[in-house]
C-alpha cells in the first residue's frame, strides 16, 4: 500500500504507556491531524513516525517498506518542530538549503531550489537575511520551506502554528492546507486546536491516553462522535443521560422523546446533542421543560443556558431564529432526533 501505515504501535516509558496499540493507515497524499489534549501521546506518536523515538512494539511502514528501525536521517521526511528549530547560525537561504547541502546537491541546484521554495512561501529575496531578523509568521514559513526542500515522502508538523497569534494562525491554516493540496504530499499534523484540525484535515484522529478514540473526516467527527470523549472534546456538546423505553423511545430529562436510533439491548446511555440542534419552543406539547438560567448574546449567535431535570443544557441559535426569552422564564426544549448521537455512557 502506498502511504504510511502504523501497525499496533506501542511506546512505553518504564511503566507508563504513552502510546497503546495504535493502528492507522494514512493513504498517499492525505492530510491527517492528530488531535487530543496534552499528554495524550500524539507528539510521541509523531516522534516515532519521524524516528526520533523508537516504538517498544508494533511496526511502521512507509510505502510498504518497514521503517520501524530506520534511523531518522535515512527516512526522507520533512518535519516542522513546535519551536521551529531554525538554525540560528545560518541565513534563511542556508536554512532551507541545509538538507540539500547534507545530501551533496550541486551548489547551483541548491540556489535554484531555494529560490523556488522562497517564491512558494512568498519570501522571494529573503535568502540572505539572518533568521533572527524575521517575524513569527515568516520564520514559520521558512521552517515549512526547509522541511519541504527535498520533496519528502512524508511531511510532519508538530504543533506548527501554536506560536502565532490567532489571526495569523487562521490564515496559515488555510495556506498550509492549500500548499498540501497543491503538492499532494502525505502530511501529518499534531495539534490540540480542533479548529485547526477541522480546517486542514482530510482525516482527524482524536487521541486520548495513548489510544485512538476515533479516526474519521472532520464533519463525521463532529456529527457522529464515536464516544463521549470525542463528543465532548470536539466543539461544544450537551451530554444528556437517557433511559430506553423501547423502539426508538427513551426518557430524556423526564420527558419521553421519540425517533432516537437506540441500538437493541442498550438500556441506558448518553445522548450527545450539539447546542445548535437544541431548539427552544413554547412549553408543553411534548417538549422538555426547562428554565433559562443565563443568556450570552455574542451578536452573531446567542447561547441560552437552561436547566432541565437538574441538568444544564446549552442551546445556540441565530438571533432571528430564536424566541425572545429571558432569564428565569420557562421554555420548551426540542431535540432533533436525527441530530442526537446515542452513545454508551
Amino acid at each position, binding site marked *: 500500500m502506498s502511504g504510511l501505515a502504523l501497525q499496533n504501535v506501542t511506546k512505553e516509558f518504564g511503566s507508563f504507556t504513552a502510546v497503546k496499540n495504535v493502528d492507522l493507515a494514512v493513504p498517499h497524499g492525505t492530510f491527517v491531524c492528530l488531535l487530543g489534549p496534552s499528554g495524550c501521546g500524539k507528539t510521541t506518536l509523531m516522534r516515532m513516525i*519521524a*524516528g*526520533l523515538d523508537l516504538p517498544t512494539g508494533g511496526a511502521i511502514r512507509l510505502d510498504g517498506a518497514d521503517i520501524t528501525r530506520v*534511523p*531518522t*536521517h*535515512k*527516512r*526522507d*521526511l*520533512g*518535519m516542522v*518542530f*513546535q*519551536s521551529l*528549530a531554525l*538554525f*540560528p*547560525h*545560518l541565513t534563511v537561504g542556508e536554512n532551507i538549503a*541545509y*538538507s540539500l547541502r*547534507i*545530501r551533496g546537491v550541486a551548489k547551483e541546484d541548491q540556489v535554484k531550489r531555494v529560490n523556488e521554495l522562497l517564491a512558494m512561501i512568498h519570501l522571494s529575496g529573503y535568502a540572505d537575511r539572518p533568521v533572527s531578523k524575521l517575524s513569527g509568521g515568516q520564520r514559520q514559513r521558512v521552517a515549512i520551506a*526547509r*522541511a519541504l*526542500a*527535498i520533496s519528502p515522502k512524508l511531511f*510532519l508538523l508538530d504543533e506548527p502554528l501554536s506560536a502565532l497569534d490567532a489571526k495569523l494562525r487562521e490564515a496559515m491554516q488555510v495556506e498550509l492546507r492549500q500548499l498540501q493540496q497543491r503538492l499532494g504530499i502525505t502530511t501529518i499534523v499534531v495539534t490540540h486546536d480542533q479548529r485547526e484540525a477541522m480546517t486542514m484535515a482530510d482525516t482527524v484522529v482524536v487521541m486520548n491516553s495513548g489510544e485512538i478514540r476515533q479516526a474519521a473526516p472532520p464533519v463525521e467527527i463532529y456529527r457522529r462522535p464515536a464516544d463521549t470523549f470525542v463528543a465532548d472534546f470536539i466543539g461544544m456538546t450537551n451530554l444528556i443521560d437517557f433511559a430506553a423505553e423501547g423502539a426508538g423511545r427513551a426518557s430524556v430529562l423526564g420527558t419521553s422523546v421519540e425517533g432516537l436510533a437506540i441500538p437493541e439491548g442498550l438500556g441506558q446511555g448518553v445522548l450527545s446533542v450539539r447546542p445548535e440542534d437544541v431548539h427552544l419552543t413554547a412549553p408543553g406539547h411534548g417538549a422538555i421543560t426547562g428554565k433559562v438560567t443565563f443568556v450570552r448574546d455574542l451578536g452573531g449567535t446567542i447561547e441560552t443556558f437552561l436547566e432541565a431535570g437538574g441538568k444544564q443544557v446549552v442551546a445556540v441559535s441565530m438571533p432571528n431564529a430564536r424566541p425572545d426569552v429571558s432569564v428565569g422564564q420557562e421554555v420548551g426544549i426540542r431535540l432533533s432526533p436525527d441530530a442526537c448521537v446515542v452513545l454508551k455512557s
Partner: protein
Amino acid sequence: MRREAPQKFADYGPLFFPAAMLTVFFVIPFATMIAVSFFKRDPAGFYSTAFVFDNYARFLSLFFGKVLGFSLFLAIAVAICCVLIAVPFTYLLSRAPRRTQVVWLVALLSVLSLSEVIIGFAWSTLFSRTAGITNLFVSIGLMSEAVALNPSFGAVLTAMVYQALPYTVLVLYPALVRLDPTLTEAARTLGASPLKSFFTVVIPALRNTIVATLIMVFIFALGSYLLPQILGRPQHWTLSVLITDQAIYQSNMPFAAAMAVFLVLVTLGLVGLTVYAGRKGEAA
C-alpha cells in the same frame, strides 16, 4: 520592574565597595608594577627610582623571544586540547540524565580543589619509571619495559590540560545546556547523521562560546609556572617561570616587572586579534 538611571551621587553608593576593592587590589598593584618596570635595579639593595628602558631593551633578545614564543605556543596547545576534549564531553554530559550530570560535575569541581603543586607531583609520579603508568602497560604486555615519561613536553601538556579541563567544562556547560535539543533533531530529520548534525549544527551554533572558552583557557595556561618546572626540562619553561626566577631568586624586580607587563600586552593583543577575527568572520 523599572530601573531608573542613578540621579544623585548617593545612588552610586553600591558601586563604592567593588570600586575600592578593584582599586586597592588591582589598579594600584598593576600601576606599581608598570612603574617598577621602568626603575633601575640596585645590585646592593632592591631598586632605585628612575625612568629607564633598559629592562625592556634587555628583554628584546633571541633567548627571551624564544621563551615567549614557547609560552604562547604551550598556552595555545593547552587551550586547543582542552576545547577538543571538553566540547564533545560536555555535549554528551548535557544530554545525559540529571543524576549522571551531577556526579560528573561534582567530580570535576573536586579536581579544582587540588593545588597546582599536588597535580604536578601526582603526574610526576604517574610518569615516573619506577611507579608510573608504564609499569601498568608492561604488565598488560603493551610495553616491554617501564620508561620515564617525564620530564618532557608531553608531560607538561598533559598536566596542564588536566588542570584546565574542569574550567573548560564549567564554562561550556551552561551554553550547551541552553542549546535547544530540537536543533539536532531538526538536523536529523533533514538528513544529517548524528555525527554530521554535531559538526554542522552544534559546533557552528556554539562558535562564540567556543572562541570565548579558547581565550579563557589560553590566559589561564599562560600564567602557569609550577607545572613546567616540575614536569618539564628547562627548554619547556614558560615566561612565567623566568619572571618568578628574576623576581624571587635574582631579586631583579624591575626586569621581572617589565617581562610581566610585556606578557600582559602580548596577551591583550592576541585576545583582541581573536575577537576581531571572530567579528569579521561573523559579518562575512
